[in-house]
């Protein structure tokens, strides 16, 4: 058995709640979210930064949580898919995914929603190209993308924004 390093004490904010946890410093944020915090909405697809299934926000920016060692989020604010709805009230993007059929197996969906909501926060009036660019790091093997794209367009309309 190789030597073990000490666990680090890490304080960060997850979906508005400040918490302290102990973890190996190189543990992937993805694993800490899913296994330690039981926030299993964040998915693992490729584990190498290509697919976006593990997308979360770190200090307001989209990141692939499979590529972030947990020590690097000490002092940061994290938002996961569990923090997107307000109580029982789904976000307009989530509603639009449902009404447009933007989810099939659902593995890519949390990451897609995280990327889409982030895009709309940065760019409330995205062009079609901006929507495509905003989702370019998220892969889906079921839907063929068009319904996801339409869901984001519909969400823009639902929030009173023109696509």
């Amino acid at each position, binding site marked *: 058995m*190789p*030597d*073990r*390093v000490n666990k*680090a004490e890490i304080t960060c904010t997850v979906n508005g709640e400040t918490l302290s946890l102990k973890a*190996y*410093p*190189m*543990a*992937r944020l993805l694993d800490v979210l899913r296994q330690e915090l039981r926030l299993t909405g964040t998915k693992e697809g490729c*584990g*190498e*930064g*290509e697919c*976006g299934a593990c*997308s979360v926000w770190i200090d307001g*920016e*989209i*990141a*692939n949580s*499979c*590529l*972030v*060692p947990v*020590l*690097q989020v*000490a*002092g940061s604010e994290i938002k996961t898919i569990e923090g997107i709805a307000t109580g029982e009230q789904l976000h307009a993007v989530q509603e639009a995914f449902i009404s447009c059929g933007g989810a099939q197996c659902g593995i890519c969906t949390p990451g897609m929603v995280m*990327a889409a909501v*982030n895009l709309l926060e940065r760019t409330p009036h995205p062009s079609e190209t901006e929507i495509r*660019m*905003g989702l*370019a*790091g*998220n892969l889906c093997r079921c839907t063929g993308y068009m319904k996801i794209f339409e869901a984001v367009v519909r969400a823009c309309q639902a929030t009173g924004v023109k696509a």
Partner: protein
Amino acid sequence: MRSYVPAYELRAPQSLEAALELLEREPDVWRPLAGGTDLMVLFEAGKLTHRKFLSIWKLSELKGVEVTPEHVTLGALTTYTQVQAHAVLQREFPLLCQAARETGGIATQNRGTLAGNIVNGSPAADSPPALLVYDAQIELVSARGSRWVPYQGFHTGYKTMVLRPEEIIRRIRLPRTKQGWRQYYRKVGTRKAQAISKVCFAGSAQMQHNTIRDIRMALGSVAPIVLRCARTEAALRSQKVSAGAFAAAKEVLAQEITPIDDMRSTAAYRLRVAQNLLEEFLLQLQNNGGDESHRGLAAAES
């Protein structure tokens, strides 16, 4: 197989000074970890042989973009997202902005840093061709002081470089001497988003009527390092843009680059594409040659 997580040490020094001190005390024991978009991929694949890392991600000394009349100086941690958002870079260094735009998706652009792209040392990296064309200089710091080196010559071979184990990159400096130069960048990959280059080309030229007064060109994925093509540049300097000059330059380029077959492409394809990109670059110089006022980004999308 996955790496055994508890075997990896990661520390986050609170200042650049503290980081440099650790590197000085135990050189080659510690390595920097910035955005992690290269290192964490290796880690996940069980291919990260090094075990001890210093997270430099939150060090403010390595952040920010500073503009002076002579230079634009980028902190080592400048991300692709920050490159694209910077007004002076957009105006004067469009090739770097385009490289940033075509690197990965937004998540990668938010975390990937310029210094990480350089030190990772991939011959297929997309920003180094732009940095070479802009005559970038790199500041290397250690506990003992700092030195500036030209980026050209930084890479000494496949994944080897002049960076010493106790040093880290602090800043990257771009001289503001190329206003009015015609600029061209094109990355050719399998698809537009998230694809590693098969060939990447950055070029810039100072034109006087139809004559190339000065020129820079650099290519990725055609040699063990990202290559500034000095011999091809020499063949074109002071030449009028013409079919004859194109043909001669393409011959020199074929001698200068050493593409290989690998999982992404073949040597023959890469040579052909490199020559075609050179021709496209030169054709744009010809089309805009006499018009000094035209200095928009004349670059095709991949």
